[in-house]
C-alpha cells in the first residue's frame, strides 16, 4: 500500500510538468496579448513594458525562467492586476472557491442521501416519483438557468436575498444561499439517484434477506446493514465530485459575482493574463490529480477486491 502511494505520488510530478509545458506554449498561440487595447500603445512604450516583464526575450528563455520561478513557488506577476502577484490573486480567491464548494457539496450530500433513502424506501410510490423528478431537473437544468431564475424570484421579486456579492457585502452570509443551491443542484441530484439505486440493490441482497430472516426489526436492518453497504459508491464519488465542484464553479462565480478562482480564470483568459492562466491551470491540475489520488486509495480501503500489490 505505501509503495503504491509513493509510486503514485512520484508519477504526479511528470504529469504536472507536461501540463505546465503544454499550457505555457498553447496560451501564447492565442491571438492578441495582455497589453493590447482599443488604443494601441506607441512602440517605445510597448518596448518598455516588454522589457519590464522579460517578454522581449525568446519564448524558450521565458519558459525556463517561468519553470525556475514555479519551482520556487513563485507564480509570477499578473500582467493585468499590476499591484498583485499571481500568488496573491490565487491566495485570495482559492479559499473562497473552497468554502463555496465545500458548503455546496456538503448540502448536496446531506439532501441527496436523505432524498435517495426516502425514494428507495418508498419505491414506486408518489414520494419516489416526486423525488426522482426533482433529481432529473437538477441534472438537466444548467447553472446558468438555475442561477438567474433564483435571482429573479428571491432577490428581485420577493427581495428576501441579495442579488449577488460575497460575505463582506452588507448582506453578509445571506449571499451564500443562492450560489450554494445553484452549484449543488446537479451533485444533489446525482447523489440522490445513486443512493436510491444502490440502496435498492443492497436491500435485495442475500445478507439483508438473512438479517430480516433472523427477525431483526426493519429499522435496524436499514441502519445497520443496508445503509453501510449502500453508501460505498457515494463515498468514492465524493473525490471526483469535490474536484468537479471546485473547478466547475466558474459559471456560478460569474453569475453571483463571487471573488473565487473560477472568476479569475475566465477573466485571465479573456485578458491574456498569461501568468494568471498558468497559475490557475496548475491549481486546477493539482486539485484534479489529488482528488483522483485520494479516490484510488479509498477504493483500496473500502473494496477488498482491489489490492495494491
Amino acid at each position, binding site marked *: 500500500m505505501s509503495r503504491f502511494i509513493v509510486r503514485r505520488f512520484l508519477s504526479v510530478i511528470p504529469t504536472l510538468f507536461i501540463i505546465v509545458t503544454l499550457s505555457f506554449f498553447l496560451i501564447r498561440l*492565442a*491571438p*492578441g*496579448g495582455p*497589453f*493590447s*487595447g*482599443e488604443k*494601441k*500603445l*506607441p*512602440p*517605445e*512604450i510597448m518596448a*518598455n*513594458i516588454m*522589457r*519590464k516583464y522579460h517578454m522581449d526575450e525568446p519564448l524558450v528563455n521565458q519558459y525556463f525562467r517561468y519553470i525556475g520561478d514555479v519551482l520556487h513557488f513563485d507564480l509570477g506577476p499578473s500582467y*493585468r*492586476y*499590476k*499591484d*498583485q502577484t499571481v500568488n*496573491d*490573486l490565487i491566495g*485570495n*480567491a482559492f479559499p473562497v472557491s473552497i468554502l463555496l464548494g465545500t458548503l455546496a457539496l*456538503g*448540502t448536496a*450530500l*446531506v439532501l441527496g442521501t436523505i432524498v435517495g433513502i426516502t425514494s428507495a424506501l418508498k419505491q414506486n410510490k408518489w414520494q419516489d416519483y416526486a423525488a426522482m423528478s426533482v433529481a432529473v431537473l437538477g441534472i438537466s437544468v444548467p447553472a446558468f438557468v438555475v442561477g438567474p431564475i433564483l*435571482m429573479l424570484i428571491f*432577490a*428581485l421579486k420577493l*427581495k428576501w436575498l*441579495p*442579488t*449577488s*456579492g*460575497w460575505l*463582506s*457585502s*452588507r*448582506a*453578509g*452570509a*445571506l449571499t*451564500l*444561499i443562492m450560489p*450554494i443551491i445553484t452549484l449543488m443542484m446537479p451533485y444533489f441530484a446525482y447523489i440522490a439517484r445513486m443512493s436510491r439505486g444502490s440502496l435498492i440493490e443492497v436491500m435485495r441482497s442475500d445478507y439483508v434477506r438473512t438479517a430480516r430472516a433472523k427477525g431483526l426489526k426493519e429499522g435496524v436492518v436499514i*441502519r445497520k446493514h443496508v*445503509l453501510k453497504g449502500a*453508501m460505498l459508491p457515494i463515498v468514492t464519488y465524493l473525490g471526483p465530485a469535490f474536484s468537479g465542484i471546485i473547478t466547475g464553479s466558474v459559471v456560478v462565480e460569474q*453569475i453571483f*459575482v463571487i*471573488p473565487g478562482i473560477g*472568476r*479569475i480564470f475566465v*477573466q485571465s483568459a*479573456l485578458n491574456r493574463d498569461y501568468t494568471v492562466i498558468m497559475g490557475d491551470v496548475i491549481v486546477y491540475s493539482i486539485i484534479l490529480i489529488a482528488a483522483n489520488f485520494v479516490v484510488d486509495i479509498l477504493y483500496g480501503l473500502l473494496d477488498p477486491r482491489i489490492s495494491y500489490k
Partner: protein
Amino acid sequence: MKRVLSGLLLIVMAATLIVSCGGKGPAKGVEFIMNNGAEPQTLDPSKIQGVPEHKIYMALFEGLVGYDPKTSLATPGVAESWTVSPDGTQVTFKLRKTTWSDGVKITAQTVVDSWLRTLDPATASEYAYMAGMVVKGANEYNAGEAGKEAVQIRALDDYTFQVDLLGPMPYAVDMMAHYTFAILPMHVINAKGDDWIKVENIVGNGPFKLAEWKPQESLTVVPNEKYWDAKTVRLSKITFLPIDDNLTAYNKFKAGEVDWAHGIPLSLVDEIKLRPDYQVAPQVATYYYLFNMTRKPFTDIRVRKALTMALDMQELVDKVTKGGQLATSSMVPAMEGYTPAKGPAFNVEEARKLLAEAGFPDGKGFPKTPILYNTSDGHKIIAEWVQESWKKNLNIEVSLVNQEWKTFLDTRSNAHDFDIARAGWVGDYLDPNTFLDMFIIGSGNNDGLYANPEYDALVKKAGTMKAGPERMATLQAAEALLITKDQAVIPFYHYVEQDLIDTTKWDGWFANPLGVHDWKYIGPKN
C-alpha cells in the same frame, strides 16, 4: 453510519446558522456604493489606464488641476492658480500649501519627481505617451533617447512649478487633470518600492483615502481629513464593486444594493430609459466603421461613399440602439469652439448612382464583404442593421464576422486583415485633435491605413497653432477631408454616458462630457 449522518446534520445546522445570522448592521454616516464595472488593474497612477481605475484615482489622488463637475474643464487642484506665457508654450503653476494623508508636505519638487517617475522607461507606464504629447522632452526621456534632464519641467521654488510645452497647446492644462500627470507620494514610493500601493503603505492627497481592498470583491475609501478641501466632502464611505456584467449591476441597482451603476444592459434599454434615475449625457466618443483603404473595392472613393450614404443613422439610434445616442456623419463630436465637419447625408438614390459608377450597378458583382466586429450583443445588432440596410438600399450582401476582443484587436490593428471593421474612440481630452491625429500616416491607431499627406499636413499644422478660431478651422478642414473627400470612415453615432443614479437622492453628480465625476462634490440631498 449514524455518526456520519449526525456529523453531516451538524454541518448543515452550522451552515444554516451562519446563513440566518444575516449581514452586518448599517454603517454610520452616509455610505455610497457604486458599481465600478471591473476590478481595478492597479491603484498606481503611473500605471493605470482604464475608466474603473480613474474613478478610484479621483477619490485617492489629486493632480495640479482637477475636473469641473459640469464642464470637465480644468479646475484648481493642488495648484491654486496658473498662468500661461504670452506665446502659449509655458505654464507656471502656483501650488497651495497642502500635504499627503500622512502629513508630509507636497512641494513643486514632488510634482517634478512624480512626473519623472511616470515617464521613466523602467516604470513602463502605458499612458506616458499622453505626457509626451504636450511636455517638451517627455517623449525623448520615455523612449530612452535622453536622460531625465531633457524633460522641461522645473520647481522654481517650493510652491511654483513650471512646464514647457511642445507648442502653444490650448488643451494642455485641461489634459493635466489626467492621471498621467498625477502627483505621487515619492517619499513612500522611494521607501517601499512597488509595495507602496499596498493598503498598509499607500498615502494619497485626494478627498478620500484607502480603507480596505478585497481584490475581486470590493474596495472601500473613507474621507482624508488632511485633504485641503475636506470641508466639502460629504460622504463618509465609498465602496467600489467590480461587477463587469451590466445586467447583474442593473439588478443590484434595482434591488437598492448600489447607488450608482455605470453602464446599462442593452437588452433592457426600453425598460431602463423610462426610469427617472436613468442619466444620459453626450460623451466625447464616436462609434464608427473603418474601411481598409488598401483593399479592393474599398480603394474606390465611390464605393466608400455609396456604402456610407446608404445608412440612415437616425433610424439606427431611434430603432436599434435606442439609448439616446446622437446620430452623426462627423468623426469629431461637437466641442466648445469647434463645429464638426459634416459628412454626406443619407441618400439612397445618390448611393445607388455612385455604386453603379464604380462598376456595381444594382449591387451586381459586389464581392461578399465581411464586417468584422468584437463579440458583443450591442455590436451584433448594429452589424445586422448595416447588413439589412445595405441589402435593402444597395442590393449587396455582406457577412458578419465576430471575434473575441483580443483576437479582434489583433486582426484589426496588427494584421489589418479586414475589409470593414467596427471601431470606437473615446476622446482623452476636450480637443478635436484627440480624434484626428490617429489617422495620420504611421500612427499606431490608423488601422484602416488611411494615407493622405494633405490631411497629415493640416493636423500637424494645427499642432503648432495658437488657440483660436483659425486653429479650429484648420482641424475642421482636416476632418472634412477624412469624412467627405476621402470617406475613410463611416461615423455612426456619438456615444452617450449611461448611468443609473437617483439624482433626487444624491446631488453633486452631473452628467458631463468626459464622464469624470469628482467625489468631493457628491453627497446626499438635504
